[in-house]
């Protein structure tokens, strides 16, 4: 689905990404992890065509990012903790924005928007001002907007930013459900390696260079984590006895 070949990216004369090559298959959930400033957001923005590579290329389904985006098959959730509180739109307006270029009647758009709002558990907030919703509620509305056009590829930049623990757990459950039910390929930047470990298919360990690309289980080998974050970092992985996991009924496969 996504093929990255010898990608080099520079921003304002600084080398951000160095010789990245990887391939993400259709239907996979891939987590991009790494320290701050390691180029995770730049990688996503290059995949979306917002940043031009200095060398190398990105192909999505064999097409340049800009051409693939024109097909309307991408859903994107940017890294943003909150939008302008006084922006005069309702949650329903925001979700309907996702269909602005789709040639169907306004009534049909509204019906679809209500369906996805129900899917993310936000239907009762449809007429509330978007800016006044909590971080987690805004995030759910934004994901509803991202999936309303039935994308084949969903790109999420730190989806749990500004979301409390309860909302985080159910958010990840929701991503898993979306992938399983609709077969959507998901690429997400996250710092919650432990929380996403139970359901991601692959992990991209990025710190300017590609330090790791493979299964989550192998990623946990000490040498991989050390290489990516430095030797001082300890990973906290949830266990089956973990109170939070039991309380929220989170399935934990790997410890």
């Amino acid at each position: 689905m996504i093929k990255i070949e010898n990608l080099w990216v520079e921003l304002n004369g600084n080398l951000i990404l160095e010789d990245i090559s990887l391939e993400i298959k259709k239907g996979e959930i891939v987590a991009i992890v790494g320290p701050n400033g390691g180029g995770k957001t730049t990688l996503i923005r290059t995949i979306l065509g917002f940043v031009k590579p200095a060398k190398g290329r990105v192909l999505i389904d064999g097409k340049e990012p800009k051409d693939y985006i024109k097909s309307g098959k991408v859903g994107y959730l940017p890294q943003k903790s909150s939008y302008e509180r006084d922006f005069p739109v309702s949650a329903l307006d925001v979700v309907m924005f996702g269909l602005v270029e789709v040639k169907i009647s306004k009534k049909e758009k509204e019906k679809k928007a209500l369906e996805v709002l129900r899917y993310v558990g936000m239907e009762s907030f449809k007429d509330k001002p978007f800016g006044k919703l909590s971080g987690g509620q805004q995030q759910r509305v934004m994901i509803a907007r991202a999936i309303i056009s039935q994308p084949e590829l969903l790109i999420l930049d730190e989806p749990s930013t500004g979301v409390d623990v309860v909302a985080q757990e159910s958010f990840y459950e929701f991503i898993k459900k979306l992938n399983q039910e609709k077969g959507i390929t998901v690429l997400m930047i996250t710092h919650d390696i432990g929380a996403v470990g139970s359901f991601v298919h692959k992990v991209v360990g990025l710190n300017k260079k590609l330090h790791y690309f493979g299964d989550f289980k192998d990623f946990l080998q000490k040498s991989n984590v050390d290489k990516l974050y430095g030797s001082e970092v300890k990973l906290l992985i949830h266990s089956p006895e973990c109170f939070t996991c039991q309380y929220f009924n989170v399935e934990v496969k790997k410890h």
Partner: protein
Amino acid sequence: MSLSDFFTIPFLVNALVGGVLIAILLSVLSLFVFVKKWSFINIGISHAAFGGLAIGFFLGVNPTITGSLFAILVGVLIGYISKKGQIHEDISIGILLSFSMALGVVVMSFSNNYNSDLFAFLFGNILTITQQDIIMILVFSAISLSFLLYNLERIMYCCFDEELAYISKVNTKFFYYSLITVIAIATVLSIKLVGSVLSSAMIILPAAVSSQLFWKYKSIILASIFISVVVVFTGIVVSFQYNLPSGSTIVIIYSLIFFIVILVKRLFIR
């Protein structure tokens, strides 16, 4: 003088019709100025037009044409510099405003005498609106309002988040530059008729007032149009009745309404 007598005086009828037309156009644009936080753009473009007007007067070309072209050019440059330099529009406006004003003053210094027409054009007079002016603003308003209202959701999506709109296949560059161009032309047309101070007030205050009362963008547009038309109408009638400058009277009424709305909201609603 009774209200019905107003409609027997041709220049007052022109002022009322022209003023109401400008009020409608600028109050719709005020929503975008409000959500994009572009309150400086109208002042920037009106001052930028000064450079174009001065060149027109100096070269003996119709200053409306040179002023409009200069304003559109500056409007597009504001967008281009902001996009390429990744800086807020207010900073680009500040730079281009100073440059255009300086250019206007230098060009004027080559002229032999003080050009009163230039200042009349810049500061405007609503009571001097002609039927030709009304036709011009009517045609421009009809075209630009049809465009803005037909693409309202697309433009609002761009204002909400340009990158997300781009991902949803919206031609974001086209709408960004179209919006700036419409604001630039509307500014030049309105400063000729109502002056730069009133023009700025008419593009900032409608949405600023109505957003205190409503939170949905369609309600803000409707309330802005209603408030604007009432204020302009009242302002012209009151200023003529009490022999006051019409532009200033309208700005004062607008500002008073804004402060009253804020005060009432603070005291009774929250």
